[in-house]
């Protein structure tokens, strides 16, 4: 049994909720930043560089197992889950926020600000990419990857001419599809629009996940899948996909179908007190 499931055996473990970044309070953002900064300082296989690197460089480009394929949604759900667990391993009770780009039509302020209120660097703004990933990218056959490999700190160029954020109407239309293949294919394309709109390292698979904005964007995608699942039977994915292993996360697609068995769900906002 995965963590967080409100079963009789584990009643004391509540499902936690991922909030909308636009609704988070200043203290909530501050705690999230503290956790993220700690994760970014870890240089071993628990740290930010390891998890960002899973998506692209250095090395495996595991996400190639997921883009343009039916496994797009379950692979990224498993990815977010493992990253979130690593983030919580810092000792902070935080969850990944989601960025609703159909409503917040700019990079959220929490990700734009280069400094925190106390003057420290904002870990949600930019990340220094490790040398190995940069070295590998410098040898890529494509000029765009080589160009980005020359920029060790992630940057964005959001909203360049010719780029677009998906609209509420477009997403509403996609949520209305009842066939999983049609739903995931169209949603993946809109997901790509956001990557291209954000610009900079977000446009390039080898480096996209180093940008902290990546996680908020993908939480939005995962949330949309969750919404679609609630309207279209939760297990309506191809049977052939159900047992497919989402490498390197040690989870099958079937195991990530229900977010509550992974210990999370989505909410607009949250407030909590302790006795």
């Amino acid at each position: 049994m995965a963590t967080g499931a409100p079963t009789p055996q584990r009643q004391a473990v509540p499902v936690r909720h991922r909030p909308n970044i636009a609704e988070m309070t200043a203290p909530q953002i501050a705690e999230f930043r503290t956790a993220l900064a700690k994760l970014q300082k870890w240089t071993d296989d628990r740290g930010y560089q390891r998890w960002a690197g899973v998506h692209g460089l250095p090395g495996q480009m595991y996400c190639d197992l997921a883009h343009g394929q039916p496994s797009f949604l379950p692979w990224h759900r498993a990815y977010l889950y493992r990253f979130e667990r690593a983030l919580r391993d810092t000792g902070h009770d935080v969850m990944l926020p989601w960025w609703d780009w159909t409503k917040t039509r700019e990079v959220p302020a929490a990700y734009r600000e280069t400094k925190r209120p106390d003057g420290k660097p904002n870990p949600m703004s930019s990340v220094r990419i490790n040398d190995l990933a940069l070295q590998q990218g410098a040898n890529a056959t494509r000029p765009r990857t080589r160009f980005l490999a020359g920029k060790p700190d992630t940057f964005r160029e959001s909203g360049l001419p010719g780029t677009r954020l998906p609209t509420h109407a477009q997403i509403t239309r996609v949520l209305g599809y009842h066939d999983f293949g049609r739903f995931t294919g169209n949603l993946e394309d809109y997901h790509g629009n956001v990557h291209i709109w954000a610009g900079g390292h977000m446009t390039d698979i080898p480096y996209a996940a180093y940008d902290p904005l990546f996680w908020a964007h993908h939480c939005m995608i995962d949330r949309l899948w969750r919404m679609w699942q609630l309207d279209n039977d939760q297990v309506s994915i191809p049977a052939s996909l159900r047992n497919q292993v989402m490498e390197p996360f040690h989870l099958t697609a079937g195991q990530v179908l229900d977010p509550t068995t992974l210990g999370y769900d989505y909410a607009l906002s949250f407030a909590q007190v302790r006795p």
Partner: protein
Amino acid sequence: MERFDSEPLPLSPAVLDGEFSAADLVFYEVDHSGESFEALVFLNPSGVGPSTPLKLESGFAGSFVVFGHGGCIGDEGHCDVPTFHKDPFDSRPLHPLTPQTKMVDIGEALQEARKQGDHLTVSVLATVPGAEGADGPDTADALFFSAMRLLAYD
């Protein structure tokens, strides 16, 4: 290629009569090994370019997006997709750069385009964000696919 202009596709009687509930353009074996781009799809266009308004009146039907692999960082042959017949005992996943299938929902645009005649032409324009220092979208030599199919559903 930067753009694709199709030969005229014949429209079936049902499509000409508007008797369909949805329609897709399906692009087969789309290459995704290079840079990220958006492929803008126009129906019965005349003189489209990167600055053409993305509106139904311009023939704009939708788009698909390739989140590109970004080129190869391996040795020679590392990113070559095997073309030989796969051994039935080989249970490894497909090569990561196996071309993709893309679908564009063109139902609304096709309802307009069918009124213009019994054939349909399609233009696909690959665009990338303005390059460093550029002030507008650019076209990209990134668009490669093996076939395009029009599907209408009742």
